[in-house]
């Protein structure tokens, strides 16, 4: 490494960047080919049209909601929205306390209510249970890759029941007496029986069905996972009587783990009593009436069989759970203890027309901003400004692809605020180049050759750029974490572009400058190169082989560079090398003192320009150590 010339190194780095860019583009092209991604970034609702609602959870009695419960609430909303036939709904939590729902178009009143309503949990005794054949058929149709054996078994089951007429209440017998308890078959009126027979299991529950269900009446429902449908008695224990729920390995009587996952429910006093009554009653009944169903939001999530009368209010549900299933059930139970409803904090409906207009104008603003910055760069830095422009273009392509890739991998959508962030970033990105170019100019003013100035300027600009970009990244991360609503997009693009900017300065702008510095046009400081005498604002002489020098006058001009503060403090950068041909020969006492200030007196300029940054840094460090020693001695 150390022996490579800067130019070779620069070419290597540029090839590296090219590989990175091709990799990104290739990955995106591959995903687009596959139909999983698209070239254009995904657009957020404010650009595409649609409705965005920010909801805050409401709990009775002002109890605290934890992240898990909120997540569960989001799950419930998602199921409801999906069930209502709205596609492409986006539901996320933000800041740990809000739920953001994005829907295309304008949601009707029903959908809005569905989103806001709380989901109740109930425990109901099972009166009848039956496999929903239509559900199985559908399952069969959907899953063609079902194993043959399973498929056969399913079909056999289906063949057995081929009466597909609507059952009528008249077909069923009237109950013989008033129901005595929750498990009494007398709950089954002909109407309920017919409903049960006609019931088709699906994950959709209409608002009317929801409104109809009453805790004191029997209910027909099903488990949309398995397709089992249930005729259930009135509510035995409401979910609000649950105090807590946990899951873990089942313990046998001897206190040893059985290796099976179990979910434990803790009921409060009221719940304990009610549950004790129910289980005592269910224990003596025949299947399926010894089961009770745990319902969440109108659907059966589990229907365990009673194996003992639970009098202590701590039932344990076991089964062939995986750890995840056990955790899921336990979380649902915890959620059930605290039904969360939602209040709409803000709702924004953007018509597609307005969205389109905002996108168009946002892009227009971006283009204007870009053109203005490019123009200013050319004005200030002449041909060198082209380096800025090319860098901005590469940064633009990289940002675009990164956003498209993020849209594919994480569903990131570009919002209007995000576009604002991108436009603001143009200025911040261009600033890295300004810091860098100004440093190069400073080094040229010190009398360095252009390649030397590029190296020396870079080693200092790099530090400044990294340090200041870090501030931007910290800000973007903090903003992203605390922001709610569409403003998050702004923080995101701001952070993304700061990182891309750093990558770019290191992998593109600097190597490009290293190569450019070897072109005669720039090195010789031709007119309009941005580095000409006039443009540098310094009286420089073209000294051949790409070197500038100050005029050798006996007067003030050349000595300026000497005792002017610039030289002294550039100090650290070997600003005035003793062997430099530019150095005036005046050997005054002041110079004698300055000689001590210069750090690396033993290296000639030609050697110096051949050295790598690392070598220079070492030389400089060594020299300054020595200098420090001098000073301490001097101080005595």
């Amino acid at each position, binding site marked *: 490494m150390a022996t490579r010339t800067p130019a070779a190194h620069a070419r290597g780095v540029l090839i590296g960047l090219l590989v990175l860019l091709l990799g990104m583009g290739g990955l995106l092209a591959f995903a687009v080919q596959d139909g999983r991604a698209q070239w254009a970034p995904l657009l957020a609702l404010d650009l595409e049209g649609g409705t965005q609602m920010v909801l805050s959870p409401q709990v009775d009695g002002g109890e605290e909601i934890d992240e898990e419960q909120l997540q569960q609430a989001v799950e419930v909303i998602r199921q409801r929205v999906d069930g209502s036939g709205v596609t492409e709904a986006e539901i996320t939590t933000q800041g740990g306390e809000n739920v953001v729902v994005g829907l295309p178009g304008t949601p009707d009143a029903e959908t809005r209510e569905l989103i806001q309503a709380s989901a109740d949990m109930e425990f109901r005794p099972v009166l009848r249970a039956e496999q929903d054949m239509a559900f199985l058929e559908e399952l069969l149709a959907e899953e063609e890759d079902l194993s043959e054996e399973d498929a056969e078994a399913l079909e056999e089951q289906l063949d057995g029941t081929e009466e597909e007429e609507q059952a009528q209440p008249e077909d069923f017998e009237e109950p013989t007496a008033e129901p005595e308890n929750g498990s009494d078959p007398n709950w089954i009126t002909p109407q309920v029986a017919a409903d049960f027979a006609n019931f088709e299991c699906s994950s959709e529950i209409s608002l009317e069905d929801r409104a109809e269900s009453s805790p004191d009446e029997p209910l027909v429902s099903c488990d949309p996972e398995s397709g089992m449908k249930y005729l259930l008695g009135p509510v035995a224990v409401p979910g609000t009587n649950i105090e807590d729920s946990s899951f873990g390995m089942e313990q046998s009587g001897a206190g040893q783990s059985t290796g099976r996952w179990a979910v434990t429910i803790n009921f409060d006093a009221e719940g304990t009593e009610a549950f004790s009554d129910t289980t005592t009653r269910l224990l003596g009944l025949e299947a399926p009436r010894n089961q009770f169903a745990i319902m969440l939001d109108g659907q059966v999530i589990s229907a365990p069989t009673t194996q003992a009368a639970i009098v202590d209010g701590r039932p344990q549900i076991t089964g062939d759970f995986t750890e995840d299933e056990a955790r899921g059930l336990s979380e649902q139970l915890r959620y059930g203890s605290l039904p969360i409803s939602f209040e709409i*904090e803000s709702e924004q409906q953007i018509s597609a027309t307005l969205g389109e207009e905002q996108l168009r*104008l946002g892009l227009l603003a*971006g283009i204007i*901003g870009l053109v203005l910055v490019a123009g200013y760069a050319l004005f200030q830095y002449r041909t060198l400004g082209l380096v800025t422009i090319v860098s901005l273009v590469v940064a633009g392509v990289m940002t675009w692809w990164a956003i498209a890739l993020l849209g594919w991998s994480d569903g990131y959508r570009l919002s209007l605020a995000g576009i604002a962030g991108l436009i603001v970033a143009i200025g911040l990105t261009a600033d890295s180049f300004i810091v860098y170019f*100004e440093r190069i100019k400073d080094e040229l003013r010190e009398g360095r050759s252009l390649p030397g100035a590029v190296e020396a300027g870079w080693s200092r600009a790099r530090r400044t750029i990294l340090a200041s970009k870090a501030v931007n990244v*910290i800000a*973007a991360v903090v*903003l992203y974490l605390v922001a*709610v609503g569409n403003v998050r997009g702004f923080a995101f693009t701001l952070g993304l572009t700061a990182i891309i900017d750093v990558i770019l300065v290191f992998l593109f702008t600097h190597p490009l400058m290293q190569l450019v510095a070897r072109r005669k046009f720039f090195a010789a400081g031709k007119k309009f190169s941005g580095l000409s005498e006039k443009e540098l604002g310094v009286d420089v002489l073209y000294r051949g082989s790409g070197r500038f020098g100050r005029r050798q006058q006996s007067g003030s001009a050349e000595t300026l560079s000497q005792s002017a503060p610039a030289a002294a403090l550039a*100090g650290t950068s070997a600003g005035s090398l003793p062997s430099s041909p530019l150095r005036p020969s005046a050997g005054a006492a002041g110079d004698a003192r300055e000689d001590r200030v210069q750090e690396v007196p033993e290296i000639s300029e030609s050697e110096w320009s051949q050295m790598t940054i690392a070598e220079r840094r070492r030389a400089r460090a060594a020299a300054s150590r020595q200098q420090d020693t001098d000073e301490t001695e001097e101080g005595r």
Partner: protein
Amino acid sequence: MAANFAKAGNQLYTGERAYPFIQRSNLWFILAAVLILASIAVPFFRGGFNLGIEFTGGSEFTVSQTENTDIAVGQDAVEEVSGQEAIVTNVAPGTVRVQTEELSDTETLEVADALQQGYGVSAEQVSSTFIGPVWGEQISEQMLLGLIVFVVLVALYMAFYFRTWTMSIAAMLGLAFVVIVTVGIYAATGFEVTPSAIIGFLTILSYALYDTMVVFDKIRENVDGLRSQLDQTFTERVNLAVNQTLVRSINTSVVGILPVGSILFIGSLLLGAGTLRDISLSLFVGIIVGTLATIFIQAPLYARMRRNDTAIRSHTAEVLALREQRGVHAVTSSGMALDAAGQPTVFPPLPEPEPEGELEDDDEYQVIIQAPHEH
């Protein structure tokens, strides 16, 4: 012109041309104090801020691409449905904004309908927003939290990077100035304060500190070599750093302002009120205040805080005493010597060491020889 700018850049770099940013700090501080007081007082006189609907709660409708921009149509529509007086503004060509107090769901739909008919546009062209009354508060709380976290993180980061608390504290005090003055400007001009504007404020902080980092990094570089020379004082070196980065500061703020200005232009003239205008307006104000604060507040503040360190005081005294001896009576604010005609010149050689100084010279000589053995 660019060439002149470049020439000025060179003179600023050498110290030949120098603006007394640090030396005049008393003046800047007095101005800053006046601005801060005004910024605090203005909200009281004007009765607070022009808070956006996000903070007051209510409903907002935007009718876009309409030919009829008559304000009365919007007022009538709301009047009919809910009997309220609505604030209707023609925010941009072809765009009308209607703000009302909180409406129920059905009322919202009805007003949207009435607006559609009134302006003769399709349902596609009416957008509506509803905001609950606590929403803005929640956002402000989150932002305040963000502000505190950010300031603490950056203060730690700067202290770590510069290895000194003084720079960090000077930067943070300057930041407070930026925040207060920007808020004051908002109060004085009656610009609408919306969550987007508040996000803009937070971004300003990042921008202002970014700018400060660059200038402070140069100061650090200049001050690092302070003790190894006896030509310039601490103050002059800090001032030199500010002058050396002046061209960059100007270029940076121009380059920063240009894109922000284009969003502001598009946002306020063509799109009307909204995310774009609010973010860019606060950034526009903030970039200017932030750049000025770095030069006039933060850097001088740092110099102030360090100036009275014993080491720096003795160094300054030594430099000034030497200047007397060397016959340098005039220097630029960045510490370049001037001759009798006011032209930049070289510092005369340091006075010959006094007789007993010869011993010191011997010491130094010996040290140079010894040094390699020590490492």
